[in-house]
């Protein structure tokens, strides 16, 4: 030991284990390390499925075009490997001069949940949980009171004395989920759609706590979908199969709507209750509804400014 050293030594660090006590301590430390390795074994198994490229992938908005293409090809390969299915990952961009909005006619909706089912299939949701971005509430006539609503009804529809209210992401102009995210993994696009980079999200679920409309979902485990049921037309920011442990949400089917198609939920609606389009286009149907119907938005008092309008016919 440095008995005469001018520099005082730190405790513990240079204390050599000597004698019986030191030997026992060394044994204990070895055992402890072995136990630690055993306890952490599941982590090792899990990390073997992670690639370095995936781990180091940058935020979507910082990827250069070539890097984006490399990421999309990698995801396609991963899907082939994991599910045995050939898929294409597209990345349609927001169209300048377009602001999407949605309206729903509550006088016409019969609560058949075809929209929720279409969402389930279109967006490659986990089959076992029957997940969907849309929840349909059976409400009591005489008011709009969610406390008297029921989203788990299981009987023929429509029932007398009831009306039906599908709720999905309101694509708020002032989205609380976006402010909440600590790492900008979720943001609002130019056309108003709030998206998530599934490869950047850390899964803290603060956005889920912040959302006033129960619009966000978490992947509590890796989604399971039979190969033949996977929708192969996938958008990077929308319906591609999500990884375990990240948030997801409705994107107004941007992989369809930015290509001029309608959202899957609208196409599936048998009563024509749903109206979707570009609110900036003065000749659009959605513009006509918002200008001529007595529309309302959910929880207006929160100042979130939803782009999802409800209205009644009569």
């Amino acid at each position, binding site marked *: 030991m440095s008995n005469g050293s001018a520099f005082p030594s730190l405790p513990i660090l240079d204390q050599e284990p000597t004698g019986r006590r030191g030997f026992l301590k060394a044994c204990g430390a070895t055992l*402890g390390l072995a136990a630690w390795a055993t306890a952490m074994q599941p982590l090792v198994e899990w990390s073997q499925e992670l690639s370095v490229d995936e781990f180091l992938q940058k935020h979507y908005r910082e990827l250069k075009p070539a890097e984006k293409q490399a990421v999309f090809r990698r995801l396609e390969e991963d899907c082939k490997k994991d599910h045995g299915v050939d898929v294409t990952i597209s990345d349609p961009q927001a169209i300048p001069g377009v602001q999407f909005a949605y309206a729903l006619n509550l006088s016409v909706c019969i609560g058949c949940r075809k929209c929720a089912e279409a969402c389930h299939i279109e967006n490659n949701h986990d089959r076992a949980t029957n997940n969907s971005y849309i929840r349909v509430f059976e409400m009591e006539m005489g008011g709009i009171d969610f406390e008297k609503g029921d989203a788990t009804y299981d009987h023929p529809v429509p029932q007398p004395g009831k009306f039906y209210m599908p709720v999905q992401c309101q694509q708020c102009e002032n989205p609380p989920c976006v402010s909440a995210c600590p790492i900008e993994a979720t943001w609002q696009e130019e056309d108003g759609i709030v998206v998530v980079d599934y490869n950047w999200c*850390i899964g803290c679920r603060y956005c889920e706590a912040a959302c006033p409309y129960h619009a966000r979902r978490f992947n509590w485990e890796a989604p399971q979908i039979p190969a033949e049921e996977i929708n192969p037309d996938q958008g990077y920011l929308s319906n591609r199969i999500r990884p375990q442990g990240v948030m997801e949400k409705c994107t107004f089917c941007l992989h369809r709507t930015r290509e001029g198609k309608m959202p899957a939920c609208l196409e599936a609606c048998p009563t024509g209750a749903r109206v979707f389009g570009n609110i900036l286009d003065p000749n659009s149907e959605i513009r006509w509804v918002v200008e001529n119907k007595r529309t309302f938005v959910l929880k207006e008092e929160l100042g979130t400014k939803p782009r999802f309008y409800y209205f009644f016919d009569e």
Partner: protein
Amino acid sequence: MATDGNWLFYGWMTLLTAIALVGANAWAVQVRDGMIVTNMSDHVSWGLYIANFTFAVGLAAGGVMMVIPAYLYDDEEMHELVIIGEAVAVAAILMSTLSVVVDLGRPDRFWHLIPGIGKFNWPMSMLTWDILVLNGYLLINLHIVGYLLYMRYLGRKPNPKWYVPFVFLSIIWAISIHTVTAFLYCGLGGRPFWNTALLAPRFLASAFVSGPAFILLVLRVLRTTTDWEWSPRPARTLIQIIRVAMSVNLLMLFSELFTLFYTGSGHAASAKYLFFGSHGATGLVPWIWTAIALNLVGTWLFFLPHALERGSVRVAACLMCIIGIWIEKGMGLVVPGFIPSTLHEIVEYTPSSTEWKATAGIWAFSLLVLTVLIKLIAAVHSRQLHPRSLSETSA
């Protein structure tokens, strides 16, 4: 020195290590298989982990109640012991950080949170504020504890220039960590149960009970296991603080409940579920009434003259208030914020065994670190550990 001791000490350390390992394993399985192994859901998306996080932040902030008498009121005897409070703060911050890490769906992407390397949504996200203040508080306390301890170890008088400014900074900072943690919740307009301006003051008041109460227990252990002696006065000061803080805490809780229940608006839905159950769902009712009972009896005990003496009344009062506040901040505040959901659906939540194991593991690991810290402090204080001691023992 920090790792030597009698068989009781080794038993304690082995027990903590074993629990920490069970917790580590539970977490590793959770990362591999997904958070489906917890009982959280899209309706109740935060549970035991974030509950424990909230409590731990309060514990860390509570340590400041030793710093204020010691430095602002020049209480010399408190000055001797203040390093214990700072050690508790360090361990508590560690506990809060681990509680957040186990709550992440993708811990492998932790680096996305590092400013400069990842994408730090500051100043918009309150979570980024929380990361900053918690890490800042950890660094400040590590510096103060480390510097004072090292000077004492060397037998030199600490230079006030090197730590007093940090001590004053730590007072403001302690208030900030629990304020920002409250802002995480009360800033959310979509959660009426949390969306109240009273939340941050309530957090602080309860922290100034749980922190000092925990420190009182640590002091008790220290006094019975080492030769370190001190007068009964610092502990009495802490008890006076607890008396005031707990009374204020209970008053604010009452005020909150009055506003909710007397108005009877939809904002009371969560409180109704929490205290009385709703639509046949009563999962949190036993929790909150246990907390209320523990807090009331604990407070009553603290007001007894016996609490000022070194006896079992004080220990019982401390334990009751610590457990009461742990429930009140967690199962009584974080969880009911989600029930009913934002669309008024009632989905209940009870922690899964994975969540209990991981949380126990975090407690055990933090206590392990605290034990080593306290043991080191005690050894340096009693001059068992000084620059010559190492060479003497090995000679």
